[in-house]
């Protein structure tokens, strides 16, 4: 009984964050995309309950909100890791062998093309099409820090560093 009550209270708190976002945006249907962006900022992805809750609160069909959330590559319906690694596979980076970096990341984190978030929810690897820094190819961005002329060795090093910091914390 107590466990259920706790769980329920937690969910109310989660949704309180969504309520706040909705209020900030005046429950304005035309602000659906900024609302989803802000929800994603809080949860790191768009959880199913949040999508449903946003839809009903804005008096929009859930299928419509789901359509918007699945249209834009920016939105993710799957949980993301705490640390996000964006690896560019645009033309320039591809030619400069970004695929070797990808393989190294996948190997180190136990990932694949279909599963890009590590099981401990620590890392997500996003393969993106261009980061606008072709002169530095191949490029990877780790938690908003850009690393130019990256190599598989650098990728491995950065992951080890983050892991060490996390276990120290």
């Amino acid at each position, binding site marked *: *009984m*107590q466990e*259920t*009550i706790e*769980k*329920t*209270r937690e*969910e*109310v708190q989660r*949704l*309180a964050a969504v*309520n706040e976002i*909705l209020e900030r945006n005046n429950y304005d249907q035309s602000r659906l995309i900024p609302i989803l962006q802000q929800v994603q900022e809080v949860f790191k992805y768009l959880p*199913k*309950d*949040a*999508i*449903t*809750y946003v*839809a*009903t*609160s804005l008096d*929009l*069909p*859930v*299928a*419509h*909100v*789901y*359509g918007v959330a*699945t*249209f834009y*590559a920016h939105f993710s319906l799957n949980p993301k890791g705490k640390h996000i690694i964006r690896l560019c596979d645009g033309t320039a980076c591809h030619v400069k062998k970004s695929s070797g970096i990808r393989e190294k990341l996948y190997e180190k984190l136990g990932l694949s093309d279909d599963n890009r978030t590590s099981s401990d929810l620590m890392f997500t690897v996003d393969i993106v099409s261009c980061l606008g820094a072709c002169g530095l190819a191949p490029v990877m961005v780790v938690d908003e820090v850009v690393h130019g002329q990256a190599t598989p060795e650098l990728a491995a090093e950065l992951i080890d560093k983050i892991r060490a910091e996390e276990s120290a914390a």
Partner: protein
Amino acid sequence: MTDTKKLTVNGLEVEFTDERNLLEVIRKAGIDLPTFCYHSELSIYGACRLCLVLVEGRGIMAACSTAPAEGMVIHTETKELREMRKINIELLLANHDRECTTCSKSAVCALQNIARRLGVHDVRFKSPKRTDPIDTSSPSLDRNPNKCILCGDCVRVCSEIQGIGAIDFANRGSNARVAPAFNADLGKVECVNCGQCAAVCPTGALLPHDDTEKVWNALYDCSKTVVVQIAPSVRVGLGEMFGCKVGENVAGKLVAALKLMGFKYVYDTNFTADMTIFEEATEFIDRFTKKEKLPLFTSCCPAWVKYAESYFPEFLPNISSCRSPQGMFGAVAQEVLPQQLGCKREDLVVVSIMPCTAKKFEAKLPKLATNGKPDVDIVITTVEVGRMIHSMGIDLNDLEPQAFDMPMGLATGGGVIFGASGGVMEAALRFAVEKITGETLKNVDFKMVRGMNNRKTATLNVAGNEVKVAVVYGLAAAKKLLNEIKSGESQFDFVEVMACPGGCISGGGQPYGATNEIRKQRQNGLYTIDATSQLKKSQENYMVDKCYAEHLGGGAGSHKAHELLHTRYQNRSQLFDAKLPIIRGTKDNRLAVTVTIPTKGDNAAATELLGAVSQYVKESGYADSVDLDAAFTAENVNCVTVDCEEIAASIDSVKEAIEKGVKAL
């Protein structure tokens, strides 16, 4: 008066006035430009790129989304345009599951027809194999994404006409699909089963679920006595499948065809439509006299009922508790026929032929069953019965008409007009006005509630009382009206709601290709039957009187009649809330228990109750058989449901409901 302007199409001068777009002007000129995504009653989408035309000085544009202008010079058939159209069709065909021979849309498929018309003999593009699973979760509709050409007609009809939006575009590029939220099963979302998506779908991507095999199997089973009821609109729709004039009444020929098929007795749903009037108009007079639970809403349309249960639970007490005519027929048939026909109740098979896909859903509702056996066993649509006749190799036109079997074959004009928007209201008024005034009604026509306007209102003076009535079709129009009633902006005593445009005559189970012109003609077909009937008022149906006297406790509103002919409604509003699973049972059949938790304001009591319910479920040993969810909403409501039935928010009543529910599983 609107000015007449002129433009040129293929060298011919064409006049136009207020046409919305070039496509309408060109079609008026007798050129049927092909389209998939254009429906005059829906918004303009401009996606299919088939209605491309060359406008001199402006280039190639889509006629559907170009406004006509004075002096325009238009060509519809240049070499370039023909090639573009053909390539568009080829691309669609390359991406379409072309198993046409086994598709039940074959021969009425717009993609097939346009490909043939344009002479597309070869698809030069490589076909990606599409293997999305086919969704057959809904009792009413099948969804085959592999046949979808993404024209968006279904998406727009669902949101613009029905105000629901159960399906929408999801994903992007080559992964784009039309799907319910989270790609869930259509049978588990807010879809009200009206089938208007299937009615506009140009291909076989959305189809009414086919139940004809079940009917054949029942007919082949010698131990069964198979009887059938035919809804009003079927008789003015079916003929279109056999080249008859639109709106022609083929009831007699259909009776003959069904007898050839092997149905023992063929009855008329109009009989129970008359009976519905006895019950519903009595209910109206009672509420109107007491001035309580007004306005009264009609309950014949199962799509409307599910809509109200999902979106406007606060109006459920206002919905007539009468079963629909299909439901009443089922109940009366199960009660009366075994004895009359000398068969066992379990050997009686009741089939319905309906213009409607939602009736398939309705017949499966547990509350319309007796001791676990559905009162109506199988529901097939107008199109399905047409196909059964086709498969026998008979032409409906060659058959000698036959009469319906008695006693449930006698009906009045009041019963037959149920199929047209405004018909239930008119039939009810014919009954209620006469009862309230105590005088014989001389003019039985209430023409102000007829026609193809999606909202008709009237104020009648009945024996010094003002009676305000409204008739709406399309659930978006209903939503608008309900919100007005809620805010006090509008006030009515009696409201008829039908989901489909023009009423049941354009239900999701009617022949494909309804336009407003066709709808009008089908409606006129029903009004002609009414006009040529000797009995026009439901209360003149003496066989209904006899049925009441012999089997239903004497008259409308009796205890027995209430037990058999009335129903109750569910609260489905939690469907839309964000859910948190608390307990997940493991058995195949589970009882859904949902407790609403308001996210704003005080939710301590609701949270405590949820905790108590979870403890009870675990301790009582029902955890295997129960799915317990918390439903979160921003609205300040306290709602507890067990199997969608709303329960008082106290632990004792919830315990009782769960115990009862688990035992009934």
